[in-house]
């Protein structure tokens, strides 16, 4: 579904990603883990076309997308739910969701809206409220709901558990499993190692812009290098 080869990217003269290879197969959950500053968010920005790649190639569904614009990538169905949610605080919950189908999924907007409300009944209760007044957990639901409105063919979730209470984190991971059970491949970018490894089939550990470890979730959990990658020990 998604294939990345020798990907390089950065900001100005500073290279953050220094040659990444990765793959997300159809209908699997793949976790990208790593400490702060390892390059996780940069990777997501390059995948969604917000930041240009300086080298390497990205293929989505067999097509090169490393020089595509953000809107072309959304149109192809690679949907990125960003870190920090990036919802539209001045727009109502409904308007936020409607804009989720700005570029893709517009013909079935009404049906998809119902689907999101079925998944997140809380959002229906808050439908006319400005999104900026929602709680952190509700905003995260809204961000994921907005992503679902575009009928994703692959969903990138960047730190969906950030800033949520342990109970909400649990719910969030359950939800991701449910979305995936319907056949949606998910690229999960997280700092929450234990729960991510429980959920994902495979994982990549990012360290200083390269992969320190890659493999099945079970292998990685037992790998002594995991601690080193996180704690620099």
């Amino acid at each position, binding site marked *: 579904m998604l294939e990345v080869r020798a990907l390089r990217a950065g900001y100005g003269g500073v290279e953050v990603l220094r040659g990444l290879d990765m793959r997300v197969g159809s209908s699997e959950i793949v976790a990208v883990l790593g400490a702060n500053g390892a390059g996780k968010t940069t990777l997501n920005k390059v995948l969604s076309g917000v930041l240009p790649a300086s080298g390497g190639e990205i293929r989505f569904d067999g097509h090169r997308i490393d020089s595509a614009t953000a809107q072309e990538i959304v149109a192809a169905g690679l949907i990125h739910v960003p870190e920090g949610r990036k*919802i539209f*605080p*001045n*727009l109502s919950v409904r308007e936020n969701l409607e804009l989720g189908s700005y570029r893709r999924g517009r013909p079935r907007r009404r049906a998809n809206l119902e689907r999101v409300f079925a998944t997140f009944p809380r959002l229906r209760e808050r439908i006319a409220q400005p999104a900026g007044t929602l709680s952190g957990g509700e905003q995260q639901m809204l961000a994921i709901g907005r992503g679902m409105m*575009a009928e994703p063919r692959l969903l990138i979730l960047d730190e969906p558990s950030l800033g949520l209470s342990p109970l909400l984190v649990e719910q969030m991971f359950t939800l991701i499993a449910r979305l995936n059970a319907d056949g949606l491949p998910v690229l999960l970018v997280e700092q929450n190692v234990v729960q991510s490894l429980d959920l994902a089939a495979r994982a990549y550990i990012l360290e200083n812009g390269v992969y320190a470890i890659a493999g099945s979730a079970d292998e990685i959990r037992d790998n002594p290098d995991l601690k080193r990658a996180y704690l620099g020990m």
Partner: protein
Amino acid sequence: MYSPEIVLEAVVNGLLTGAVYALVALGLTLVYGVLHIINFAHGALLTCAMFAVWGLATAFGIDPYLAIPPLVLVFFGMGYALQRFVIGPASHGDDNNMLLVTLGLSIAIENGLLAVFHSDTRGLEGDAAFQVVQLGPMLISRAKLIGFAGALLVAALLWLLLTTTDTGKAIRAVAREKLGARLVGIDVRHIYAVTFGLGCACLAVAACLLMPTYYVNPRVGNAFVLVAFTIVVLGGMGSVPGALLGGLFIGVVESMSGLFLGDSLGQLGIFVIFILVLLLRPTGMFGAKA
């Protein structure tokens, strides 16, 4: 000191003038709200629109009100192209540079107009300025009444556009959350250009509503934009309802201070208000807290 009728008439006249001020301010506040820059070319573009109305009326005998639809289209297109192909590219990705580009643009336009039309002041032929409508005890200028209705209509249409269409929602989304907008597939450059185009379209309408009772010279737009800027600050930078209410209020302030202080000091009240707002409530009536 003045009879109530005279004061009432001044208030009504102020409201009528204020609505057209509001229209100019709407364009300014819309561009500020989304692009986060003061469009310094706003005044020069208004002057262009007024010259266009004058030109159409003088050369082809086209009624200023009939000129609204074609001029709205032309000015929307021109604004779109200016932002997309001149202001945007010239600022090289840094929005702060756009401010300087619009300043340069205003100097270029103003001097271009001076070169072509010289500094003469021109008005439309005809007696539109003298036609009045009796409203109770008051005699109200017909052209101003039309201007008032037209400005409110445009404000309502703009509001509908911003709240009910996908493009309008995208404009409001880009105003506050650019990265989020890009990630749902909104082309931010396109939305910038549409916003700039809408700002120019407001100016085209304002010019058509103004010209029957006003005059045009290559610097006339600046006076309006100074007032419009006060309105934008008063209403809250980027707020559409703020621009509308602020415009009406400033119109009344101008008319009242004209009545009580004398015509030549009419604008004094506006700038006193401006300073007071900056001192006491810098976010304006409807402004978001920083």
